C-alpha cells in the first residue's frame, strides 16, 4: 500500500495530503506534479456530484508548496497568498492532476503558478497563482553533512 519512493515520502509526512490521498508524480527544480484520485467524500455539490472548490484548492496549494520546496536551496515555505480561477467545473468521477512551477524566486519570496486538469489533459479547468515565503539553506561554508 505505502509507496516508498522518496518523492512520495514527501507527501506521506503531510497528514492532510495523506488524508486527500495525494500522489506525487514528479518533483524537482522548482516544479511539481501531484494527482488526487477521485473520492466521493470530496463532492461539493450533491446535486451535480462536482468536486468542492476547497478540495481543488488544497491540491493546488500542496502542489505549489512542493514546487517551492524543490527549488534549489529552499529549506521551508508557507503560503502568503493564492488565487484560483475556476474556468469550468471538473468532471465528476475523474482524477485531478495539478502542475506547479516556481517561475521566480528572490531570497525570501517564491512566485508560483499552477494548473489543475481532470482527465481531459488539453484544457485545465482551474489555474492558480500565488506568492510563498521561502527560507533558503545557508550557503555551504565548511564541510558539513549532506542535506
Amino acid at each position: 500500500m505505502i509507496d516508498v519512493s522518496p518523492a512520495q515520502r514527501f507527501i506521506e509526512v503531510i497528514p492532510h495530503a495523506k488524508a486527500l490521498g495525494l500522489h506525487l508524480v514528479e518533483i524537482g527544480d522548482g516544479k511539481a506534479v501531484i494527482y488526487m484520485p477521485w473520492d466521493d467524500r470530496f463532492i461539493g455539490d450533491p446535486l451535480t456530484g462536482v468536486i468542492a472548490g476547497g478540495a481543488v484548492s488544497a491540491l493546488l496549494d500542496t502542489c505549489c508548496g512542493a514546487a517551492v520546496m524543490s527549488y534549489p536551496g529552499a529549506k521551508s515555505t508557507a503560503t502568503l497568498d493564492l488565487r484560483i480561477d475556476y474556468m469550468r467545473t471538473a468532471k465528476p468521477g475523474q482524477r485531478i492532476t495539478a502542475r506547479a512551477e516556481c517561475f521566480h524566486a528572490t531570497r525570501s519570496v517564491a512566485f508560483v503558478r499552477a494548473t489543475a486538469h481532470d482527465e481531459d489533459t488539453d484544457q485545465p479547468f482551474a489555474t492558480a497563482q500565488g506568492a510563498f515565503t521561502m527560507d533558503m539553506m545557508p550557503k555551504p561554508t565548511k564541510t558539513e553533512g549532506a542535506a
Partner: protein
Amino acid sequence: MNRPAPEPVQIIKERRDRALQNLVGGIPYVNFLGIQFDRRGDELTALLPFDDQLVGNPLLQAIHGGVTSAFLEVTAMIELSWSILWEDMENGNLDPRKLDADHLPRLPKTIDFTVDYLRSGLPRDAYARARVNRSGRRYASVHVEAWQDKRSRLFAQATGHFLIPGRDTTEVE
C-alpha cells in the same frame, strides 16, 4: 382585522435550523473536513474543529494552507446560499419546510477565490464569518475572515466571486 397569532419562536427556530442543516449536511466535503455552522438569526459562524488530519506541517502541527483555503471557501459559499435562502424565506417565496434533502437549492459556483494567509493556523479550532459585499442577479462578491483564539487576530481572509444559480429551486438549466 385580526392578525393571525405569530408562530411560537421555537418552531420558527427549529424550521430555520433544519433548513440550514439540510443545506449544509448534504455536502460530503463539508463533512469530510468536519465543518459545522452556528446560526444566530441570519448570521452564520463556521466552525472547523481541529483534527490531526488537517495538519500541513507536522513539526508545527499547523493547519494545512489548503484546509484554510477550503474552510474559507465553504464558509463564503454557504453564507451566500444562506443569504439568498434567508431572503426567500423571509419574503415568503420559499417555505423552509419544503427544503428537504430532495429539494435542495442549487449552490453558487466559484468563479475565483483569493486567499490571504496572515498567520499560520495553530492546532486549535478555527472560526470564520463571511460577508456578501455584493449580490446581483448573476454575480456575487463575498469576503470571508477566519480566526482562532481571538476574533481580531485573523489568521486568514479571502475574497471570492461566485456565479449565482437560478433562484427557483426546481429550475433546470
